């Protein structure tokens, strides 16, 4: 019985952890690679989730519809970055604190617009596989978690390959390392950063769709996730894309174990404790380079 419980807690933890990783992936790009502390990212994800519910109500599958939506988010991300860099980067200030405040204001505005548009009530999607489970021996995995969880390894792998093997991807990593290095090679670092921020925003559309399959969301659902998403990115190590998946799963499994064998009441403290412990004892994270 204990073993069955353990196996199921771990499998649930892995599934939830994958979803956390999907949520944090955009942040791993914008914060981890570009060093832009976009605390509005979870709100972008929630916006993606609402977009998915709108199309779901017309009969589309939320995950499929999130692919074209990702393109829209990519464009919106670029436009938003343009706005951001006009305010900051061109002012010649690298005032992270001011940037944090800007993103804070942006997330408030987005949340309020969502409330005014959709109301403060919970919204959910209607998909066929919700309510059914995949049973593997003693382990029962609800499709409601399994299918969105699969999104994370797919996105992580795609992004990792992109960053490793494409010209633009390598340029993004170069920008992360040293902006000046790039201007020497004749690529516009501004364009590369816009592009990378657009990718970060695009992931929000997909992970938003994943999130709303897991459970109903409201416009303020992002707030619960800010701490967790940053915990994933920092635990992974700044800029480590595969690390994001590992860190998300680590947090997810720990939460599930605390919930199953300790008290579920303490589960929200897990991510925070891991975040603080990382900052205090290993600021470079699990897979990050020393900074």
């Amino acid at each position, binding site marked *: 019985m204990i073993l069955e*419980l353990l196996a199921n807690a771990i499998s649930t933890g892995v599934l939830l952890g994958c979803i956390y990783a999907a949520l944090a992936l955009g942040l791993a790009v914008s914060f981890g690679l570009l060093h832009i502390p976009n605390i509005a990212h979870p709100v972008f994800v929630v916006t993606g989730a609402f977009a998915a519910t709108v199309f779901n109500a017309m009969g589309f599958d939320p995950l499929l519809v999130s692919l074209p939506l990702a393109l829209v988010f990519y464009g919106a991300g670029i436009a938003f970055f343009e706005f951001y860099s006009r305010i900051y980067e061109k002012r010649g200030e690298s005032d992270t604190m001011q940037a944090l405040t800007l993103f804070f204001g942006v997330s408030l505005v987005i949340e309020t617009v969502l*409330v005014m548009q959709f109301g*403060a009530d919970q919204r959910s999607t209607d998909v066929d596989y919700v309510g059914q489970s995949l049973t593997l021996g003693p382990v029962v995995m609800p499709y409601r978690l399994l299918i969105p969880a699969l999104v994370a390894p797919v996105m992580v792998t795609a992004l990792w390959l992109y960053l490793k093997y494409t010209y633009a991807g390598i340029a993004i990593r170069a920008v992360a390392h040293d902006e000046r290095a790039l201007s020497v090679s004749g690529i516009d670092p501004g364009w590369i950063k816009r592009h990378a921020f657009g990718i970060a925003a695009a992931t929000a559309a997909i992970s938003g769709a994943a999130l709303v399959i897991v*459970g*109903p969301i409201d416009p303020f659902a992002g707030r619960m996730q800010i701490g967790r998403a940053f915990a994933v990115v920092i635990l992974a190590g700044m800029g480590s894309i595969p690390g994001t998946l590992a860190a998300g799963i680590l947090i997810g499994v720990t939460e*599930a174990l605390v919930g199953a064998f300790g008290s*579920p009441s303490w589960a929200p403290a897990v991510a925070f404790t891991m975040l603080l412990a990382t900052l205090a004892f290993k600021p470079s994270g699990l897979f990050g380079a020393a900074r």
Partner: protein
Amino acid sequence: MPAVWRTAHGQGAPIRIGTTICKTGALSSTKSTLTGLELWRDDVNKAGGLLGRPVELVTYDDQSAVAQIPSLYSKLVDIDKVDVLISPYGAGLSAPLMPFVKQRDLFMIGMFALAGNDVTRHDKFFHSAPWGPESKTNWARGFFDVAKKNGCSRIAVLSADVEFAKTAAGGAEQIAGEYGMTVVYKQSYPPATNDFSSILRNIKAQTPDAVFVCSYPPDSTALVRGLSEVGIGDSVKLFGGAMVGTQYASLLGSLGPALNGIVSFALYAPEPTMANSEMTAFLSRYEKVAAEQGLDPLGFYIPPFAYVAGQLIAAAVTGAGSLDKAAMAKVLHETEVKTIAGPAKFNDIGDWTERRVLMVQFRDIKGKDVAQFRQAGRQVILDPPSLRSGDLVAPLTKARSS
């Protein structure tokens, strides 16, 4: 706003009724309170008002925030000079208000403030909702009456870390003890938990006969889904009890057939034992407004009792023949008031003397059309016995598969 400074007691000047509404914030789904009140106001004014004076509502948005309450009610009382108060929604928002109401000796109708007057024991406070006496422990007693009747002895208690749920869970334990039942599992979980698989497995391992659940809308959804996904075992006859959310159309619509078999509380269900023409007429008028304003389309839970709040005020004012607060309270303490939700009699701290919290079991739900919930037989009333419209189908696994 010249009305603020006008004397409120002049002949023909409106009788002012003040309250705050959770138009925004966490409790904004309760804002249909206002519609219920407005429908009552329109009815009363059409019939010539109270004491020959029109009725006027003065409302503010309290943002579902406790911190807003003291200053807003002070404003209602001291600046707007309202004659009668209605409490904000629920016990949490009403709690900071009670000492003030008692100290100033005001007349107030409680809106869903469960056990809201049990500590203060103010003698000019009356509940519009039929929680009954000692409601902190007793409001969900019906669940345990049903459990007892069906031979349940092993009870599991699960609750969200939220005010209402914790209170309900505390009462549940007490009643279980009283009925000689064993609490074999007790757990609380943080709000916004979206996966209950390990919790459900832990419950299953204890083979309880009944699972008393005190949850909030998002977790009610996740729990019901979890039931379908990982199951709960054949031992469970009764599942639910205090699941907030199952009173509202949005959740009913999104869960649909997954609700079958679950037992939860309600204050009104369109069963033949309960429906009356006034209530039905009220609900059909409400539906029209709700459709325009995007409110809960069913409106079984809150709006009727906002209307009841108005009816109680009307009875008190007409019975007293004045706005004298002591006289108004005396009327409600001494006479039975006929409301759209049935006859109301009050004890000395304003509880309905008869608890009329329903325990309903969801049955025969097909598809996700909300309109089906307006038909009889979808929410079968198991308790109280006076309103019973059917018997429990058990165990839960059978009720869900049928």
